[in-house]
């Protein structure tokens, strides 16, 4: 593996959230904003109205959540599939513990990789610990991107599998429920 390729310097800083305490108001805001902002002239004021906060407080709280890295991204959230990026594969790699961090940071910088996570192995049936999600317009497009990564980082020797998705049963943003409820009563409709 080519370990001379260094990730960008800023990546050496931790990208994990810093310790942040949420108060009740933060929690209410988080629950409300998960399904998106109102697309209106003053979306933060509209959210504030529902929460009993003024606009500037909503904005300040969001800025704080953003600075503390709890918010990973903010903006227009698109649907890949509807936009013609119909192929997606989860590529899983069995990477030694010594290099997983370095390789993960390298792979995590590519535009066509939308997720890059370290997850536990589950032996004996599941030896893979690095998970990358790769989108493309077609299967060939995705395979080409994977081959590019293999060539670029000399990953031929690294055991991996390509899991193309064949059917999407459900897709939407995560929804955290603040209020508890009976498990069986919380059946919902998908929006994806």
């Amino acid at each position, binding site marked *: 593996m080519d370990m001379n390729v260094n990730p960008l310097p800023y990546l050496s800083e931790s990208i994990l959230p810093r310790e942040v305490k949420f108060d009740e108001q933060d929690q209410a805001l988080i629950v409300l904003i998960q399904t998106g902002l109102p697309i209106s002239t003053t979306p933060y004021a509209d959210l504030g109205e529902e929460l009993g906060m003024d606009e500037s407080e909503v904005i300040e709280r969001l800025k704080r959540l953003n600075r503390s*890295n709890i918010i990973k991204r903010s903006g227009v959230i698109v649907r890949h599939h509807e936009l013609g990026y119909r192929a997606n594969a989860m590529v899983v790699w069995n990477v030694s513990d010594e290099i997983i961090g370095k390789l993960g940071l390298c792979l995590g910088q590519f535009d066509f990789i939308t997720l890059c996570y370290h997850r536990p192995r589950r032996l004996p049936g599941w030896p893979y610990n690095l998970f990358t999600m790769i989108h493309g317009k077609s299967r060939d497009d995705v395979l080409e991107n994977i081959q590019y990564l293999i060539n670029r980082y000399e990953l031929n020797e690294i055991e991996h599998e390509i899991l193309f998705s064949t059917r999407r049963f459900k897709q939407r*943003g995560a*929804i955290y*429920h603040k209020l508890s409820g009976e498990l069986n009563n919380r059946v919902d409709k998908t929006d994806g």
Partner: protein
Amino acid sequence: MHRVNTITEVNGQLNTQQHGLQKLTELEKHLLNDFQHNLPFVSRPFKQIAKQLGSSEAIVIDTLNKLKEQGFVSRVGVVFRANSIGASTLAAMAVPVSELENVAAMISSYSEVNHNYEREHHFNLWFVVTARDEEMLNSVLYDIESRSGHPVMSLPMLEDYHIDLGFDLGVGFERGQESGV
């Protein structure tokens, strides 16, 4: 786009939009491609976006609402980092093909499940479970195991290596093939 429809849409009716991107206006393309990160946290965010695009606030708002109705935009909002405000995991199951649809439908019915895909592998069903805490998360996994009669392999995130700037659709301003390296 020679091989479209690798994914069969189960719930939506959006499959006819095979060349969706080509039909979009320049404004729509820019809104989709160039504003996937750094949403302005200011009183009139869409006015600021409109200014950057040489458009008007009203047009930007109308266009975004339309893109949302058409299913190209899921929402305008924020993505929270996994496990920063609750507990989540990626779960996998090996389900016999004859049972797959029923088991998948059962799993999708949980509000805690936000993604649920069939994938080409012995582990053929993959879903993400998100709950307010670890205890709730485990109870959902346990529930799914006992209702389906198949074991669930839970693979929680240990570390996130991804810098999320959104996804380059190749239709807006130049971003380059790679964002770094």
